[in-house]
């Protein structure tokens, strides 16, 4: 189990992580979701004791990382597959890690076999493709047979076969009762891999819960309404406490479900041409929740901003 409480990290005047609290539980894959630059990697580095938190605390099974005895037996992590010396062979890379943790040599062959690198084990890691580097990183993470595993964007840049392999692998690890914490900026990926989600944006916690909750929460009942008396209907809806936004020749209504809108329209004798509940996609949900907290956005998604900001204020 990983517990973060009030985790904060400043780099100079930049706030990378801001008062972040969450828990990651055993036997599940927990997704760590957020746009690029949201503070995911920083958080993972703090979990591993590599970066010192400016404030707050993070513990693994109740202990600080630096108090763990032979930490690779408790926590395995793949933060960046390129953290290897290019002129050192894959086997030698695992050999020194094993030596630091007093693991038997045969464990090196086991993990090499597990990730399918046995054939190239004596080649220098500098010549590896991204997929091979990723496998080497996973081998290093698994070396100490740890209960807790962290992966930072493990599928980035992988081919479909590699993505499938990693996804299955993480499920297998979770099924074995391990804590698996995996970050991604792709919600679709998380939806297929994770059971729980920790969602952050601009270093702040946006949501923690199951994937299903997140989707339900994020795509919260907006209803598309079309009517010849749109303006009048809008006023009534606002008066009744709903949120509205223009969507071309229709209104998008939030905070009120379709039966309630239909009854309200009937009571005011307003004709409706369309009354359709909108089931948001995962991506929509994600953008809606994190839109305001995207660090670097394109102009196009920028157009969404006022909407999203409004919906976030509402929720707050």
């Amino acid at each position, binding site marked *: 189990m990983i517990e973060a409480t009030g985790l904060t990290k400043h780099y100079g005047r930049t706030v990378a992580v801001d008062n972040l609290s969450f828990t990651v539980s055993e036997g599940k894959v927990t997704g760590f979701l957020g746009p690029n630059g949201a503070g995911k990697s920083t958080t993972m580095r703090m979990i591993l004791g590599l*970066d*010192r938190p400016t404030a707050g605390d993070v513990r693994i099974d109740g202990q600080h990382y630096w108090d763990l005895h032979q930490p690779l037996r408790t926590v395995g992590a793949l933060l960046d597959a390129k953290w290897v010396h290019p002129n050192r062979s894959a086997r030698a890379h695992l050999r020194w890690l094993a030596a630091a943790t007093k693991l038997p040599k045969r464990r090196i062959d086991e993990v090499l076999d597990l990730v399918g690198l046995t054939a190239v084990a004596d080649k220098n890691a500098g010549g590896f493709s991204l997929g091979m580097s990723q496998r080497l990183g996973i081998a290093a993470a698994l070396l100490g047979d740890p209960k807790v595993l962290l992966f930072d964007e493990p599928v980035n840049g992988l081919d479909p076969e590699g993505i499938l392999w990693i996804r299955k692998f993480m499920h297998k690890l979770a099924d074995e009762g391990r804590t698996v914490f995996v970050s991604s900026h792709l919600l679709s990926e998380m939806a297929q891999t994770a059971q729980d989600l920790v969602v952050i944006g601009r270093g702040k916690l946006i949501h923690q819960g199951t994937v299903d909750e997140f989707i339900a929460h994020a795509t919260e009942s907006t209803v598309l309404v079309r009517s010849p008396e749109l303006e009048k209907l809008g006023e009534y809806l606002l008066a009744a406490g709903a949120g509205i936004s223009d969507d071309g020749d229709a209104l998008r209504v939030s905070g009120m479900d379709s039966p309630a809108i239909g009854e309200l329209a009937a009571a005011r004798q307003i004709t409706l041409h369309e009354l359709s509940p909108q089931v948001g996609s995962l991506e929509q949900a994600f953008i809606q929740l994190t839109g305001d907290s995207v660090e670097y956005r394109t102009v196009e998604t920028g157009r969404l901003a006022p909407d999203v900001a409004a919906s976030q204020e509402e929720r707050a």
Partner: protein
Amino acid sequence: MTTLLATERIKLFTTRSPWWSAFLALGLTIGFAALVGLNHNGGPLTVEHSQFGMQFGLMVVSVMAALAITTEYRFATIRATFQAVPKRTSVLVAKTAVVAVLAAVIGEVAAFGSWVTTYAIDGGPEMAITTGADWRMVAGVGLVYAIASVISVAVGTLVRQSAGAISILLIWPLLVENLVQLIPGIGDDIHDWMPFTVAGRFLNGTGPDAPMGPWASLAYFAGVAAVLLVASLVVANKRDA
């Protein structure tokens, strides 16, 4: 600690740079000794002649030692290292120890290799290692290399960049310590306390003006290395990896 020493030993010897450095250091020192020996005329060859190339090896070893830590920062394996062993002080002390042992071995092989080479060319009674000064001049090389390598690891840890660390480590003993002498009045007094100058006095004799005897000189050089090492440990512990 033995675990950490084994870890750092594996790390050091599974890259090419220590092998290259050892090869270069030995080639330069012994090769230079051969050059000096072969071209010598007028008077017998002495023990001192065999050690003229000592500084080549010293500089190469300094570069090797600095790279042992700066490449960890360069390739971010320092993070993997601190992930495997979060006790940073222990890790860095182990690394320093392994590097220093290698430096000492290179120094001894270089020094005795140079001596054997010149002895083979023209071994007279002047080439015999008899006095304490003779022994220091030859066997002391390994000690000086080892301590210098500690300074290199410390500077490498502080600077974290190969280019910067190597520039400092080469410019300091080769240029700064020499130019300081030129300052009128106080230059010589400052020069007397420059660490590599003092280390040189341990090897080559102290001369009449030296502030310290040979072993005190070595102790002073070791003290400078220890202070730098402690400073680098404090900084590495405070810093994000």
